[in-house]
């Protein structure tokens, strides 16, 4: 057995077949990350079109129908194409390395769960070229706008969502199986890096809610093609049921997009503060609490649908509670930095910006939880500002931090620190010019998802658009830095960062094609 096994210890296959047929967690991680980055640029292009149209009042560049297609596709592609696959890619690359496993538990399924995605998104984006146009009902696709009133391309959208869901569920099963079964001897649960912990919990969230999403789009499919009336009031159905089902998926979904980010930041801050993470176990418990709460707060997205008072109060209180475990996390990060010995390489800059700007998104989240105030904020640019603060300088910054942090491990070369910092500062300034004025727009009364607006909103929209163009253009620097780093650069050591802890830093840089084919020395496994 061992002799036969040794025969497979060669490098990767050559050419395209390496990527098509690979079962190697590092290759699949790389595929996910490149896919995510390309979707990030595509979704970003749609955002640029939106910001260009909103630069001035009046219709300049696009028709309202195309504008609605852009907002819809931007949301869908960023959520399902950019953020989620990026985290899955990081999980593929890093979880086996962090827990001392030779690969993911289910390598063939791993290949399949990735290769579904390009087809799902090819189908989704192909709707842009269809006669009926792409989906134009928002990424939340509320019925009946997305059923009886939808363009015929909605069926392609439904099938694409099914494929993405299947991919996510398989990815989640794989991650759970890997973490629970393939940890190196000595790697007890409470010694796992927080990135592994947050992903374990995220994977359970995915398995819990993706079937709900699949269910709700299937009900849409039946309403559209098979004469049912789940969401059609004229046939005895209930349009609000759609929203309950969607947000029962949708709220855990937003934590799916942020919990792994917590894990990343919890790895980076201790490294560059050269100090152990403060409150490791409370971080684990806080993550679990947030995951639990995520299932009982969904209707705070629906405060204006006319729920009974008792329902409104329950969802308000439950939502406010989320501030407690989230606060614990932020306090722990700050305490980790406190009395550390900090340096500010690019990953640390992104991580610190994450803590500050994510917390600002958290503050507006708390404001939105206050139901009477939410009546004023709901479906305005205040909400747009809120969730973009959580998702862009939140989730996306954490992914960028992770990319800079682990690039030397992936490529064997140090990235260009000067360009990395330039990328950081332009992104940081751009993202704030882009989203901060949107708080003001929302408070002053600008609804979201409108292609044109009243004159008093002009100035802040202009500023926001300028910030958008700056932020968008800056991302090309990231692309350049990554390519440059792959091509060459100062050779990275195995440890890469002075303060780095964890098994991934015990293997060579670049990480060999096969790692931990024999378990690591248990002495290398420390409490994080």
């Amino acid at each position: 057995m061992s002799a036969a096994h040794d025969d497979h210890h060669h490098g990767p296959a050559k050419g395209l077949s390496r990527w098509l047929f690979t079962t190697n967690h590092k290759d699949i991680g790389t595929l996910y990350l490149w896919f995510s980055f390309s979707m990030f640029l595509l979704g970003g292009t749609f955002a640029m079109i939106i910001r260009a149209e909103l630069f001035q009042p009046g219709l300049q560049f696009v028709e309202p129908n195309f504008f609605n297609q852009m907002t819809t596709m931007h949301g869908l592609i960023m959520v399902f194409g950019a953020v989620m696959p990026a985290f899955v890619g990081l999980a593929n690359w890093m979880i086996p390395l962090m827990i001392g496993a030779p690969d993911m538990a289910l390598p063939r399924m791993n290949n399949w769960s990735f290769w579904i995605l390009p087809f799902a998104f090819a189908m989704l984006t192909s709707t842009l070229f269809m006669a009926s146009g792409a989906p134009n009902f928002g990424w939340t696709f509320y019925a009946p706008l997305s059923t009886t009133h939808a363009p015929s391309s909605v069926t392609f959208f439904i099938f694409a969502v099914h494929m993405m869901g299947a991919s996510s569920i398989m990815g989640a099963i794989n991650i759970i199986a890997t973490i629970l079964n393939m940890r190196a001897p000595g790697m007890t649960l409470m010694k796992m890096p927080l990135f592994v912990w947050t992903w374990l919990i995220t994977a359970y969230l995915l398995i819990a809610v993706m079937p709900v999403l699949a269910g709700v789009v299937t009900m849409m499919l039946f309403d559209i093609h098979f004469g049912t009336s789940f969401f059609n009031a004229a046939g005895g159905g209930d349009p609000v049921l759609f929203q309950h089902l969607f947000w029962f998926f949708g709220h855990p979904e937003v934590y799916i997009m942020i919990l792994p980010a917590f894990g990343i930041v919890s790895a980076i801050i201790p490294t560059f503060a050269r100090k152990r993470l403060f409150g490791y176990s409370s971080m684990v418990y806080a993550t679990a609490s947030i995951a639990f709460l995520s299932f009982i707060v969904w209707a705070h997205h629906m405060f204006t649908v006319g729920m009974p008072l008792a329902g409104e109060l329950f969802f308000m209180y439950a939502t406010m509670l989320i501030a407690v475990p989230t606060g614990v996390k932020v306090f722990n990060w700050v305490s980790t930095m406190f009395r550390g010995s900090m340096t500010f390489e690019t990953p640390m800059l992104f991580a610190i910006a994450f803590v500050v700007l994510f917390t600002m998104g958290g503050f507006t989240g708390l404001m939105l939880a206050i139901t009477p105030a939410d009546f004023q904020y709901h479906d305005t640019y205040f909400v747009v500002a809120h969730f973009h603060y959580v998702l862009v300088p939140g989730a996306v910054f954490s992914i960028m931090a992770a990319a800079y942090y682990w690039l030397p491990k992936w490529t064997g070369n140090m990235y260009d620190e000067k360009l990395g910092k330039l990328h950081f500062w332009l992104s940081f300034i751009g993202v704030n010019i882009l989203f901060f004025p949107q708080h003001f727009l929302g408070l002053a009364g600008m609804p979201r998802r409108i292609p044109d607006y009243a004159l008093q909103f002009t100035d802040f929209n202009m500023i926001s658009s300028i910030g958008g163009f700056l932020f968008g253009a800056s991302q090309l620097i990231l692309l350049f830095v990554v390519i440059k780093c792959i091509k060459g650069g100062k050779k990275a050591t195995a440890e890469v960062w002075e303060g780095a802890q964890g098994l991934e830093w015990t293997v060579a840089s670049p990480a060999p094609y096969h790692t931990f084919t024999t378990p690591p020395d248990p002495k290398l496994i420390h409490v994080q």
Partner: protein
Amino acid sequence: MLPKAKLWLGLIISAAIVWSTNLQAAWELNMPQGVTQISRDTYDLHMQILWWCVAIGVVVFGVMLVSIILHRKSRGAVSATFHESTKVEIIWTLIPFVILILMAIPATRVLTEAYDSSESDLDIMVVGYQWRWEYKYLREDEGEEEVSFFSALSTPREEINNALPKGENYLLEVDNPLVIPVNKKVRFLITSNDVIHSWWVPAFAVKKDAIPGFINEIWTNVEEPGIYRGQCTELCGLEHGFMPIVVHAVGQEEYDAWYADRQESARTTRAMADNVVTAEESMIAGEQVYLRNCSACHQPTGAGMPPVFPAIAGSAIATGPLRANIDLLLNGVTGTAMPAFSNQLNPIELAAVITYVRNAWGNNTGDLIQPAEVNQILQEGQ
């Protein structure tokens, strides 16, 4: 930081300061306090939670900033070794919890108040349509003349398409504003005819979704006469950005006069449904009806936006049998965006727009439809 980056940062910050000092007066930064008790309470809640967030932010980011400045390796900082403290963890779990309770109490009070729509002085039904609002004043007795009308964007298309300079109330103006009396508890019963809309007037802190199959309740009691503007806040399709809400809050006397006037004009319109119209009159009136109700999808040229919104110019229906054309207009087409117009337009408007589409853009059928004919078909349908 790079010297260049510092320079840029400096420039941006000084530009921001110049901007903000010069233009702050013109820029709306905060939620309006509004003109109702609920809207002021809501504003107070908003400010209260905002200040809590600012205070927490100052403490948390303050500690962080101190660490960033003092505890850096380049200043020779050596890292401490502490990494947990149950006592501290309990404290910073409890303090936020107490703050949340302090916030939840007033929020519960305001919400309970906002939900109490009992004992209203006036009830108005608000119905969302793609893409306008219908207001129906609920009568005390069936014999009264009913006041109900549609309220749609009145900003000319030319302003939206940048052919004309934009007016002061660009996109926030309507043909028929809602009129309500001040210092009266007005209850709105909100529903929708097609997709979900949301009826929002920021100055009243009133926002409620209009959902087909549901009737939602919300109320307001406006204290100051004035004109208040809002917009639809739930994505409802193509023209979602173009269905504003305008409310005139007036004194009781003015309201009564307006209401009587509306009743009178409703009587007149009903009487006119028996008049015989000429082709020229119909074409002029029909074009107006068409531009207000049909042109968003079918386009002013009748060319439509195929295949979602079919062309009318040269179409088989608009040049085919008359009765089929009328039925389509009255009943809509199920499963498409084409709504039933029988309850959205009166017989005069229905007849005029049919005449118009059957004779405009080269659809030279020569048909002239009288309001009485349409009325006849409507009666048959019932």
